[in-house]
């Protein structure tokens, strides 16, 4: 990946050189030591370039990279992937059981306004609003028994992304990039896309926390199509490319003279290389984000609009070796349908359904689905009961649903997951997960397992203890592994 690296094979690489060549000094000592300890540094040569050098996990694994489609705000499971006929039976009447406590008061059973239909060989039922996605249902494993801890956006977003509701912890994209590096040194290893601005909790969702800053998600506002608005400093507005090349040539000359009297300092060498990498990144990044380079039939397959564009970009990024791509639906919490769920959920699904379906088919036709894990879901689901009016909180239309952490749906596809399966179940009405419950920690444990990590051994030593994405929890859901 890094042709500029020169390793003298006649002489064993010392630990100090390794460190230095890895482009990391002081604080990295602990990092490298731990990577060695955790079996993350498979060979000295592999680590000899920079902190994003690709490296192997604990054990061989199917999944090599991740696309996380984040339906922020909380999509309703009973309106998408978890049909509940009993809600129609009880529509407008109180449930025969007490409503579970959620953020706000909810009332009677609220039947889904959408039709469900069986799809594929597996015959899994999916709502009409995700009809295009459903065409790939035989590649999808629907987990209908997800649960989280609280019915509020902020802690649930933190739990879903970082494994802890409040405290400062690295996000899962940071963990994965720390563990595996990235296969393309000309692009960031972890990219978070969200059009028009940040989701709730903002850039904390892709924070590196106490890991080095290089593992933090690079935020891209996909409202823009102009490359310089997408990635900071990716383009020079003052100097033409040939002139910049001349600048870098002079820089290399100056640096070479400086280096002559400073032998065996890999930090100096790493910095020399970083300018050449940056020079190439300007081209490669511009190319990766430019969907107009796709043939028309592919663009048509994904469809029009921002969602389609960013989901197509996600495919272009992972194809180029980016390790972890998170695609957020939009700024704030678009899926938070406290009112008008029929109109809002239909509109939101319509924005992304075609593109998600296209992504699954496109990955498959390119042979990428086998080693790419696609995750779909929000931070929680929604209540099967209707939300009651709350002054200052909703518009009192009594046609929406409240947050629901007790039970919700996420689905996984590709990357070593058993397609065409449903795992777990909520109760008769979809209020709470009851069968084969999967906590968010379990999802994380499973995700890490699919990528080749033992989640209990994948740790980072910080502030006196070994931290994990799963803290002291998590269980790998073996039944969904292919």
């Amino acid at each position, binding site marked *: 990946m890094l042709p500029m690296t020169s390793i003298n094979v006649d002489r064993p690489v010392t630990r*100090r*050189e390794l460190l230095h060549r890895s*482009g*990391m*000094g*002081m*604080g*990295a*000592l*602990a990092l490298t030591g731990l990577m060695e300890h955790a079996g993350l540094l498979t060979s000295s040569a592999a680590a000899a370039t*920079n*902190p*994003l050098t690709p490296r192997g996990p604990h054990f061989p694994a199917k999944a090599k990279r991740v696309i996380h489609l984040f339906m922020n705000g909380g999509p309703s499971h009973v309106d998408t992937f978890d049909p509940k006929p009993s809600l129609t039976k009880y529509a407008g009447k109180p449930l025969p059981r007490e409503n579970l406590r959620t953020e706000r008061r909810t009332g009677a059973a609220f039947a889904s306004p959408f039709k469900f239909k069986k799809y594929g060989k597996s015959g899994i039922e999916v709502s009409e609003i995700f009809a295009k996605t459903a065409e790939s249902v035989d590649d999808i494993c629907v987990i209908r028994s997800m649960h989280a801890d609280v019915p509020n956006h*902020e802690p649930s977003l933190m739990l879903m992304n970082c494994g802890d509701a*409040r*405290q*400062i912890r690295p996000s899962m994209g940071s963990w994965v990039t720390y563990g595996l590096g990235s296969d393309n040194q*000309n692009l*960031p290893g972890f990219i978070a896309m969200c059009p028009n601005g*940040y989701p709730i909790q903002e*850039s*904390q969702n892709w*924070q*590196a*926390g*106490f890991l080095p*800053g*290089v593992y933090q998600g690079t935020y891209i506002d996909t409202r823009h199509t102009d490359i310089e608005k997408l990635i*900071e*400093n990716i383009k*020079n*507005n*003052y*100097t033409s490319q040939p002139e910049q090349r001349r*600048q870098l040539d*002079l*820089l290399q*000359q100056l*640096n070479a*003279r*400086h280096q002559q009297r*400073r032998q065996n*300092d890999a*930090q*100096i060498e790493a*910095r*020399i290389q*970083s*300018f050449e*990498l*940056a*020079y190439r*990144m*300007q081209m490669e990044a511009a190319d990766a984000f430019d969907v107009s380079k796709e043939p028309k039939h592919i663009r048509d397959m994904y469809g029009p609009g921002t969602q389609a564009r960013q989901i197509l970009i996600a495919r272009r990024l992972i194809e180029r070796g980016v390790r972890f791509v998170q695609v957020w639906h939009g700024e704030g919490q678009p899926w938070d349908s406290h009112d008008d769920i029929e109109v809002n959920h239909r509109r939101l699904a319509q924005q992304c359904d075609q593109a998600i379906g296209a992504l699954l088919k496109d990955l498959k036709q390119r042979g990428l689905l086998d080693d790419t894990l696609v995750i779909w879901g929000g931070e929680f689901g929604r209540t099967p009961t209707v939300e009651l009016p*709350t*002054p*200052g*909180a909703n518009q009192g239309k009594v046609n929406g649903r409240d947050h629901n952490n007790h039970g919700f749906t996420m689905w996984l596809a590709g990357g070593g997951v058993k397609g065409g399966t449903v795992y777990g179940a909520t109760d008769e009405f979809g209020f709470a997960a009851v069968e084969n419950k999967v906590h968010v920690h379990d999802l994380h444990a499973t995700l890490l397992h699919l990528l080749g990590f033992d989640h209990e051994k994948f740790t980072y030593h910080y*502030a*006196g203890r070994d931290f994990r994405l799963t803290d002291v929890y998590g269980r790998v859901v073996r039944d969904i592994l292919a």
Partner: protein
Amino acid sequence: MPTFRFFAVVLSITLPVAASASAETAAISPEARQHWAFRRVHCPPVPAIKDAAWLRTPLDAFVLSKLEAKGLRPSPETDRAALIRRVYFDLIGLPPPPDEMERARNDQRPDWYENLVERLLASPQYGERWARHWLDVARYADSKGYVFTEERRYPYAYTYRDYVVAAFNNDLPYDQFIVQQLAADKLPLGADKGPLAAMGFLTLGRRFLNSQPDIIDDRIDVVTRGLLGLTVTCARCHDHKFDPIPTQDYYSFYGVFANSVEPKDPPMLRPPEANAAYAAFEKELKAREEEITRLKVTRTASRIVGLHLPGTAVQIPLAAVNRAFQRADRDKDRALQKRVEQWKATSPLAPPRPMMLEDAPHINASHVFVRGNPGNVGEEVPRRFLAILSPDKREPFHEGSGRLELAKHIASNENPLTARVLVNRVWAQHFGQCLVRSPSNFGLRGDAPANPELLDYLAWRFMEDGWSIKKLHRLILLSATYRQSSEDNEAKRKIDPDNSLFWHMNRQRLDFEALRDAMLAVAGRLEPNLGGPAVELTKEPFSGRRTLYGFIDRQNLPGIFRTFDFACPDTHSPQRFITTVPQQALFLMNSPFVVEQGRRVVAQLHGEPTEARIRHLYQLTYSRDATDEEIAMGKQFLASAADAKLSPWERYAQVLLLSNEFVFVD
């Protein structure tokens, strides 16, 4: 806060006590007491060495004896220009201006170097540089992080930053520095309320959705890892797995902070100027505050009226009405409160106030939360100091929350950790490498120092010298160890590849602040004024203030900070990572900021012939003469055509700012 305490107290009465009733903790094992970092600091005997001629300050003997034992020789003294540049960046974080470089290089006095060190230590820019190192320890930021819709900016965080700058510049003894940061409210301050701002150390952490146990945890963490090099917060849910820190000790500290509150209206640090501008500020503030009062009055009135309406209303209990309106009311209240906070945070006229703590009006007993769960209240624990750092019989804290007693236990010559931890941090900045490589973990799992006698000597001497940080700098900077060349030596590298014995100086790369400040300095753009509210650094028109004064938004820290390995402002940062990634190069190649500084450098060049201008450019950027070969290279580059936007000179100057010579310090 009051709700929370209420909760704890009630539960402690109603629930059976889950853990052992004994508040006296298990005795600390003799092995733990013998751990090197828990033994009292003594002055180690000065070791015998062969080459006494090499020694310059007493610490050199400790370094040399270890080197000699390994058959190593120190590196030769570095050349004068390199030493000048090194000590400039080290002490004030800025390059030597060409005339200063000239003066120091030609200074014929035998004590030229001592004089230079004194000049730099006396410069106010010294405090700015070294304060920033402390702000990493203190997880400094200008914002609270995510707190729903509340105003996020801390209006007065900068008062803490300015306090730290002044503390370094005035060489405030470190023990007093600690006591002021933990308990300035308990000190007899007299007229100068300035030290109250020191308590920002405790208060300016992240606010974790206003969750009290997490806020307190963060405060315990910054105190224990930051000042003691102990990971006490590992004991939040259970006894520490490795270190002799029972969970009771965590809750002893928890009790100290649970009984400390932030006053609603802290005193002004300086009286405002009585003028029309300030009157306008106050008028607006009053107007915004009155909106809140007005709303509350009308709200109560309307609810009472509502209850007297005929028909339905009388049947609705007041509580239900209140509940229904609660959310809307709360949102309105918050919005109005935010307007008040916004005004304080954005008006330059808002008089500075300290982010202080004071004791709660009623001191409550503290209890263990079993498995860290505030809903599961266990045994009562007295507020007192850590078992491992105390004699077997421990006295509980007597005065109020106990913060002052806590501070005194830390800032004590008896404390085996405080001085060791601090000298290790200072050493790390000077040498780019710690003596103890886990600078915030001196516990059983921390790294033992490669040269424990050196560490102990420095710690002992530091306390002997009245906890003076400037004296510590002198001891280190004037040493032969510090004055070594940074050159590599293959034979020595084979014996000590990590340079853990300091047989040469480590070459260091400028950190984010020094890099940006150095660019501003050579561009003639650096603004010399000290202190004041934080400024936006990343947007045009670019500020010329030092990077220290940049607004640190811990929620969405501008990407450029972490790209350049800036400390994560969310928790105490033991040391910075040093990474080399292409995003750093992209910033230097393409950002309008760097292009602007390149232009400004060129605007200063004088002299007509190209050669003279190149020489001047080298003086400005590298503080040295250009060689003939370098002049030839420059001329060749300059022979190209002008771009539409930048002249060849401007592109040339930018290249020098990008170069390794500009960012590495030998």
